[in-house]
């Protein structure tokens, strides 16, 4: 693609999300979401591959449906109580419709079918944008609806953590595994949304850091399925030692920073007398942990049958820029000691 065109598209992508962040009026928020969708579609379809076109079409259909349902919910709200402000959404019917529309937009569990297929059709950089930047605008809207429908949110969250873990078990394609991991993490965020929005935001930021580094590692190794992971030690030995830790951080094991959001969310749910929900969420996290462990096993503990000359690509200088990956992987592994500071900042 022409650099000027792709630059324009990227700037427009940023502009759409920023409009949604900055808006207090529902119509402007909807326009931001539409600009966002329209700007990423050419980036997705830029390779003219049948898979890319199909993924673009599926993404377009779901996002257009979700955006028009969102506008329908807000119009209903305006007809019912004459308000277009984001903060003034009080009637339960528009709130339920709105929650369902945004669940379709970010891919929460009963409405998640499009997400693995769309992610599978994209290249890793566009997939990175899709699973990090595209989640920000819907969450900016979800965080502003305060009196949310509690049973619906908990059902969505539990179903997402369950299906995110369950669906990833049988996959060998890395992008599909990452899509299911994204569904599971979004479920954790939705679970705690009504009790502590700050905690949702913290989980979203940590998820973005971890997914960013995972996609960059896979992009560096050109890896799209599990088999390819077994040869990464010949290309980047140091990174091969760190990546299993990164995947376990996504799974939420204690000394790594992925443990912090799960810990705080379980604490918050227990405080709200939802011990059963907390137990179920913690148990479904085990399902996710299983496929992260399988990826770590393929990365760290398998030896691919190489001939001697095939073991030396690590001597060559890599042309790719490593600084963003170095920063984000450090943050994704070592942020757990910041937990007291974060909790102090979140408690007003």
């Amino acid at each position, binding site marked *: 693609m022409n650099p000027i065109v792709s630059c324009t598209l990227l700037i427009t992508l940023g502009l759409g999300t920023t409009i949604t962040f900055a808006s207090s009026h529902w*119509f402007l928020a909807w326009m931001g979401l539409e600009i966002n969708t329209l700007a990423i579609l050419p980036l997705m379809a830029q390779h003219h591959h049948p898979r890319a076109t199909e993924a673009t079409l599926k993404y*377009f259909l779901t996002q257009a449906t979700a955006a028009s349902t969102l*506008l329908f919910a807000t119009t209903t709200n305006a007809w019912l109580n004459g308000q277009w402000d984001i903060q003034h959404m009080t009637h339960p019917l528009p709130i339920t419709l709105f929650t369902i529309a945004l669940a379709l937009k970010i891919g929460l569990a009963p409405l998640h079918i499009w997400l693995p297929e769309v992610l599978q059709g994209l290249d890793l950089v566009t997939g990175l944008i899709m699973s990090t930047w595209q989640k920000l605008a819907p969450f900016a809207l979800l965080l502003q609806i305060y009196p949310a429908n509690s049973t619906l949110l908990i059902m969505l969250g539990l179903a997402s953590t369950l299906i995110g873990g369950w669906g990833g078990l049988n996959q060998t394609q890395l992008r599909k595994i990452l899509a299911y991991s994204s569904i599971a993490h979004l479920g954790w965020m939705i679970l705690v949304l009504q009790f502590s929005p700050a905690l949702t935001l913290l989980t979203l930021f940590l998820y973005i850091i971890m997914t960013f580094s995972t996609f960059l590692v896979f992009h560096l190794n050109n890896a799209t399925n599990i088999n390819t992971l077994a040869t990464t030690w010949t290309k980047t030995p140091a990174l091969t030692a760190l990546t299993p830790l990164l995947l376990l951080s996504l799974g939420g094991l204690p000394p790594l920073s992925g443990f912090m959001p799960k810990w705080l969310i379980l604490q918050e749910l227990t405080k709200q007398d939802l011990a059963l929900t907390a137990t179920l969420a913690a148990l479904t996290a085990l399902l996710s942990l299983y496929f992260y462990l399988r990826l770590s096993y393929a990365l760290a503990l398998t030896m691919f049958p190489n001939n001697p000359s095939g073991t030396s690509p690590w001597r060559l200088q890599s042309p790719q820029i490593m600084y963003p990956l170095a920063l984000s992987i450090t943050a994704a592994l070592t942020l757990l000691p910041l937990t007291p500071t974060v909790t102090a900042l979140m408690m007003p």
Partner: protein
Amino acid sequence: MTPTHFAFSAAFILGLAGLAFHRTHLLSALLCLEGMMLSLFIALSLWTLQLDSTNLSASPMLLLAFSACEASTGLALLVATTRTHGTDRLQSLNLLQC
């Protein structure tokens, strides 16, 4: 619920049901999307008319502009899918299942 409110809600829900359950051709899906947007257009215009509010009087036009952009993107994707898959039937979009 006023009759106007019921009318555009019913139109929107019919469009949504068509999009969700009538999954044969891509063109019919795009038409259903367009119908949903047009029912929202009616809702927005009647809301401004009923409340005599001048603040939001530009919003139906903005909605039409965005839905035109969306429809043209949909048609472009229709052409692209027909060229890569050979048909516009939604059942043939099964490359990404594995």
